[in-house]
C-alpha cells in the first residue's frame, strides 16, 4: 500500500517537472510550436533544441536501466513491446500530425495550458479525451 503512494508521488513530481520544462521551453505556447512547423516561412528552430535536449537525457536513462534488474522503486521496467510498423501506427500518427499542425497543440502542452484555466486549452483537452475514448471503444468492440 505504501509503495503505491511513493510511486504516485514520484509520478506527480515527474508530471510537474515535465510541465515546467514545457513552460521553460516555450512549448506551452502554440504560436511558438507553429513557428517551428512553418519551415517554409520564418522558421523558429527552438523545438528542435527542446527535442535534442530531452532525447539526450532520456537516452542516458534508458542506457543506464539496461544494467539494472529493476527500477529504483523496485518495479519492473515496462519496455514497450511493439516493434511492427502497422497501418494504425501510420494512420494514427498522420491524424495526430494534422491536429497538431492545425492549432499547434499536442497532449502535454494542452494539459499545461488547460491547467492555467485557458478556455482554449480546456476545449482542446475535452475533445482530445473524447478522441482517446472513441478509439478505445472501437478497438474493444473490434476485438470482442
Amino acid at each position, binding site marked *: 500500500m505504501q509503495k503505491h503512494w511513493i510511486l504516485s508521488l514520484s509520478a506527480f513530481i515527474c508530471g510537474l517537472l515535465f510541465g515546467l520544462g514545457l513552460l521553460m521551453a516555450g512549448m506551452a505556447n502554440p504560436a511558438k510550436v507553429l513557428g517551428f512547423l512553418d519551415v517554409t516561412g520564418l522558421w523558429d528552430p527552438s523545438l528542435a533544441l527542446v527535442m535534442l535536449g*530531452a532525447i539526450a537525457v532520456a537516452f542516458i536513462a534508458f542506457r543506464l536501466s539496461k544494467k539494472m534488474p529493476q527500477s529504483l522503486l523496485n518495479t*519492473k521496467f515496462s519496455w514497450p513491446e511493439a516493434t511492427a510498423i502497422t497501418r494504425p501506427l501510420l494512420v494514427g*500518427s498522420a491524424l495526430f500530425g494534422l491536429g497538431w499542425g492545425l492549432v499547434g497543440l499536442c497532449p502535454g502542452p494542452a494539459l499545461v495550458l488547460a491547467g492555467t484555466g485557458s478556455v482554449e486549452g480546456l476545449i482542446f483537452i475535452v475533445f482530445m479525451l473524447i478522441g482517446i475514448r472513441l478509439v478505445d471503444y472501437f478497438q474493444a468492440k473490434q476485438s470482442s
Partner: protein
Amino acid sequence: MIDWSHFTPESALTGGLMIGLACALLWLLNGRIAGISGITAGTFTSSGSERQWRLAFVLGLLLSSWLWLMLAPLPVAEVTGNYGLLAAAGLLVGIGARLGSGCTSGHGVCGLARLSMRSLVATLTFMGVAVATVFIVRHLL
C-alpha cells in the same frame, strides 16, 4: 529563413533538458515511459495503483503552471483558431495519438531515446503531416 527574433536556444535547450529529466526519472524510478497520451488514456482504462500514478502524473502537468506562477509570471500563450477548430484539432490529436500508440512525448522523446524504429517512423509521420498542414493553412489557403 530562420526567425532569429523568436529563436530562443537557451530556454529551449534548458526546457528540453528538464523534459528529458522528467522522462528519465519516471523511467528510472517507476519503470514507466513518459508518454502523455498513453498515461492520460490509462487514467480511464486502468484501476488501483496503476490508475493512481497516472492520475498523479496528469495532476502534476495540470498544476505545473501554478508552481511556475509562484516563481515567475506565466509566459504568453497565443492560441489561434476558433473553438470549433480547437475542438476538431483536439479530437484528431486524441484519435491519432491513441491509434498511433503515442504522441510527441512517447514516440518523439522516449521512443527516439530508446532508438525505436517504430517511434522514428511515427515521429517522422506526424512531423511531416504537421509541417504540411501548417504549409497549406499559412501559405496556400
